[in-house]
């Protein structure tokens, strides 16, 4: 009887003093994403991954999901979005979309209001059942974007636009931070699944190391994946370690070429190579964004699932930063370098007299296909001002569609990527709708435009040694040499012609080359100076800006991965740090490098983009 009374009282309370309810839905968690893509590239800056309508001018299919409401009634709606094109044009917004709740479309058009990420008010909806379907309808096909949707019946509630406060709110709401799942305790945690990270993971696994490989996209390969489409560059199987590169040969694509059809990049080949290794636990769609250290030693890395928002902890003895951006190093407090060093720092002939923040840029590549019948492209008003002089009558944009030099490759990266896309759309709009030669392009239709931009440079983590230009040109080799870099010192600058047409905002680049002999990168460039158990492979190793010009191509970064994976096995065996390996056990790494880790019996199939070198002998 007492129990019944209590239940009765409780239910009265429920009905009469209903607690205000706020429901938050992450767009990237939508069950059915339709034609929308998940974009996580800027989550460290704006707080989350989001959904984007990347339709290249054709509205994409609706995304939808089911949401449970604890109580019926009226709710205010907020959508976190932005008008990405407004920083360049005051005309109609590029990306616009509608939201419908339970089949009823809200009158509000989203994506038009504000340049920065912020909550747009969407009016009020009446929720009349527990389970409600939400759907996003793209209107333009030009990269409208949605981070999250909030429904609230709390009159006092207003969602915050402060990124940190919003992040706390998310964590409180979903509780992911309070209950991170333990992914496991590993010998070696590799963060970043580009060529460097993938090779590092496989090389370690084949040498008996238990590895976690964390990648923040659904595919492996990074710049060489079908999402970015940059072909491998540089040579493998070189002096003084001719067996290095066998793994790159094993997992790399057969076909060369930038901005080619998807199949060229053989995403599956890289994926299967990893899945075939019993020692690797692969975590796709996970973005590592926090690090626990103790006395300069990393104890764990935590990553966010870019679709579900769940948090996962990776404990490990050794870590590798193969993120390209030095993400793990910076979070752990590693010393790093950015921009161009002045001549006074290392005495490099090619360095500028005064240091600056110029990095090489990121590429947004694209191509079109020829249709049987004329194809239209919307006459966009928000395009950059264009004319015959600016017009490029081409059907494919290669690496030189590169932008962002002088901007911050992390903090400004959404702007950099968006400007790259804007340039592509502006030129294409002109060719299709305004050019005097538009008839030539009548049947051309944009087939692919990258939305994951291909970065060349951001942060370089400092090791026990920093490789510089003179080491490469004299050359000056060291006993701890490892993966040989053979590409020219290939530095990119804004294209002077393009800079004249677009002052201060060039979106094309030129390259300057200096040939070198294959040069073994010192092992001391592959581990952090001040974080005891952190190695690096990829573009974020310890090199000067000038030296980055050669080491950054992907056959070379893949070989760095092979070395770092081998080093992990020596560190495990000797229970030492990378520096301990350098000081006491380098002969063991030397032996592994002479042996190689990839299948040596495979034919050499990667004849493309080997690049010029001063080498005299072809090993393979």
């Amino acid at each position, binding site marked *: 009887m007492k129990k019944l009374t209590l239940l009765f009282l409780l239910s009265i309370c429920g009905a009469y003093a209903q607690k205000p309810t706020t429901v938050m839905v992450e767009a990237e968690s939508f069950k059915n994403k339709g034609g929308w893509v998940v974009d996580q590239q800027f989550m460290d800056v704006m707080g989350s991954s989001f959904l984007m309508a990347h339709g290249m001018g054709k509205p994409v299919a609706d995304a939808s999901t089911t949401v449970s409401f604890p109580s019926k009634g009226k709710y205010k709606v907020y959508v976190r979005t932005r008008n990405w094109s407004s920083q360049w044009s005051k005309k109609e917004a590029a990306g616009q979309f509608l939201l419908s709740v339970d089949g009823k479309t809200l009158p509000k058009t989203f994506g038009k209001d504000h340049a920065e990420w912020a909550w747009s008010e969407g009016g009020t909806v009446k929720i009349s059942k527990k389970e409600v379907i939400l759907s996003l309808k793209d209107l333009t096909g030009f990269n409208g974007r949605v981070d999250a949707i909030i429904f609230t019946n709390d009159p006092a509630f207003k969602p915050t636009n402060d990124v940190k406060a919003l992040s706390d709110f998310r964590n409180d709401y979903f509780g992911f931070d309070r209950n991170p799942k333990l992914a496991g305790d590993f010998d070696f945690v590799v963060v970043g699944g580009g060529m460097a990270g993938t090779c590092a993971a496989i090389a370690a696994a084949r040498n008996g190391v238990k590895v976690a490989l964390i990648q923040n996209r659904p595919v492996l390969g990074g710049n060489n994946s079908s999402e970015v489409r940059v072909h491998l560059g540089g040579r493998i199987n070189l002096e003084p370690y001719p067996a290095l590169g066998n793994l790159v040969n094993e997992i790399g694509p057969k076909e060369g070429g930038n901005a080619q059809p998807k199949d060229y990049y053989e995403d599956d080949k890289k994926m299967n190579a990893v899945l075939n290794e019993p020692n690797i636990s692969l975590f796709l769609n996970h973005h590592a964004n926090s690090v626990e250290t103790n006395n300069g030693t990393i104890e764990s890395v935590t990553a966010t699932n870019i679709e579900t928002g769940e948090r996962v902890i990776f404990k490990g003895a050794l870590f590798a930063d193969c993120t390209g951006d030095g993400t793990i190093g910076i979070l752990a407090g590693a010393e790093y370098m950015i921009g161009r060093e002045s001549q006074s720092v290392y005495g490099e002939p090619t360095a500028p007299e005064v240091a600056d923040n110029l990095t090489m840029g990121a590429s947004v590549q694209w191509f079109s296909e020829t249709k049987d019948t004329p194809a239209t492209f919307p006459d966009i008003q928000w395009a950059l001002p264009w004319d015959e002089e600016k017009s490029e009558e081409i059907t494919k944009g290669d690496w030189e569609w590169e932008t962002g030099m002088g901007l911050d490759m992390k903090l400004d990266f959404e702007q950099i990527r968006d400007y790259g896309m804007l340039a592509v759309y502006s030129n294409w709009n002109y060719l299709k709708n305004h050019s005097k030669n538009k008839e030539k392009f009548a049947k051309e239709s944009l087939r692919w435009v990258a939305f994951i931009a291909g970065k060349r440079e951001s942060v370089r983590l400092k090791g026990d040694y920093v490789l510089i230009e003179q080491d490469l040109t004299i050359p000056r080799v060291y006993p701890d*040499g490892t993966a040989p870099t053979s590409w020219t010192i290939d530095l990119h600058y804004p294209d002077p012609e393009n800079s004249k047409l677009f002052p201060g905002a060039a979106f094309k680049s030129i390259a300057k080359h200096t040939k070198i002999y294959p040069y073994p990168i010192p092992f001391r460039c592959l581990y952090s100076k001040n974080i005891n158990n952190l190695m690096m492979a990829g573009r974020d190793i310890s090199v000067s800006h000038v030296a980055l010009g050669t080491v950054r191509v992907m056959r070379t970064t893949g070989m760095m991965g092979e070395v770092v994976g081998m080093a992990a096995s020596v560190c495990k065996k000797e229970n030492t740090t990378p520096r301990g390996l350098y000081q006491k056990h*380098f002969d063991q790494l030397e032996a592994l490098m002479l042996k190689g880790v990839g299948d040596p019996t495979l034919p050499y199939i990667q004849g493309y*983009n080997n690049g010029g070198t001063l080498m005299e002998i072809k090993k393979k």
Partner: protein
Amino acid sequence: MRWLLAQILLLLTLGSFQMRDHLEEPSFSIKLEDGGRFDVYALKDGNGLLDGYRAHIKAPVCEDRLCYDVNVIFYWNLNGEFLRYEVLPHDPLTKMDHEPFLPEDYKKLQSILTSQDLSFVNIPKDELVTKSDSSEVDGYTGATKLTVKKEVIEGALYTCYTLWHIANGTVVESIKSHTKNAFSKELIRKIIAQDNQTAHYFLINNLNSSQFAENLPEILGLMTSSKGYFSKNTIEKIPKTLFSTEPLQDFIVANYQELDYYTQLAILKKLDNQRQSGSLKQFFIGHIDPKNSFQNQKLIGLVLQNIGPEEFGLLVGQLQATGVGVSEENFQALQQVNEQLKLNISMIQKL
């Protein structure tokens, strides 16, 4: 005007072509892929020594649907590197629609034929052009791939492709083996005197043991002025037996410190189980130093092979003075030697 310049260029090249040919002899012929062939002539210098190679090439080339015979003279050096070409008078090279080559096209062809860094030459011939009907965009029946376009002379894709493969094809190996068969002491010395590291590579890859022995001082001399990995590769090519000889060991003592790390490693590897002179052993013992930590164990292991009492004393002294530790394997060898010599080795540290 351009046409006139092209004609002048033709006349100039013709002049040099006609001046040759009194010192040449037919040597071998090369089959072309399409069934044609050309004869290669060996050229001699004033001393009657082999000096290079020449061939008159006639090959059919089709640009788009128009075909013609290219008619050129090619020259190679002793080790098969393509040097230059000459065009015959009244038979200029042409591009699509029989447009004659311009002076800059001839220049570009020279740089194409001498380059080993081109990617279009690795693409199968039938894949140079993407099969598409979109003739309007760039005026080709099929569109030339963009990467290819950048490397070739516009409108002369197949001329560039065909001539590159003739200049750098099977003829290269034939030339090499012809020169190799003609190796005499004088010819080898002539190649050594050339300022061309590719030619020097050709030598070390093709000399036999007695030729190495006969020319050893000169070959070692090449190493000290070489670039890249030439000295490492040379050490790897020199027959192992020569490493026990005095001239080679003297060379090591005199030059070891100036040689790069990988050459040093190659030397230590080659000396394994070779008799070492007292001065070489003493040199290596002096080289054991905490600064050379990467090499110390290799040096200790090597020196311990067939070591005599005098050098053993020196080694023990050096290890004690420098405090350099000794690996397990080397320590065992050290103890074994010491069983007879009974020095006090208690101060030597084990790694």
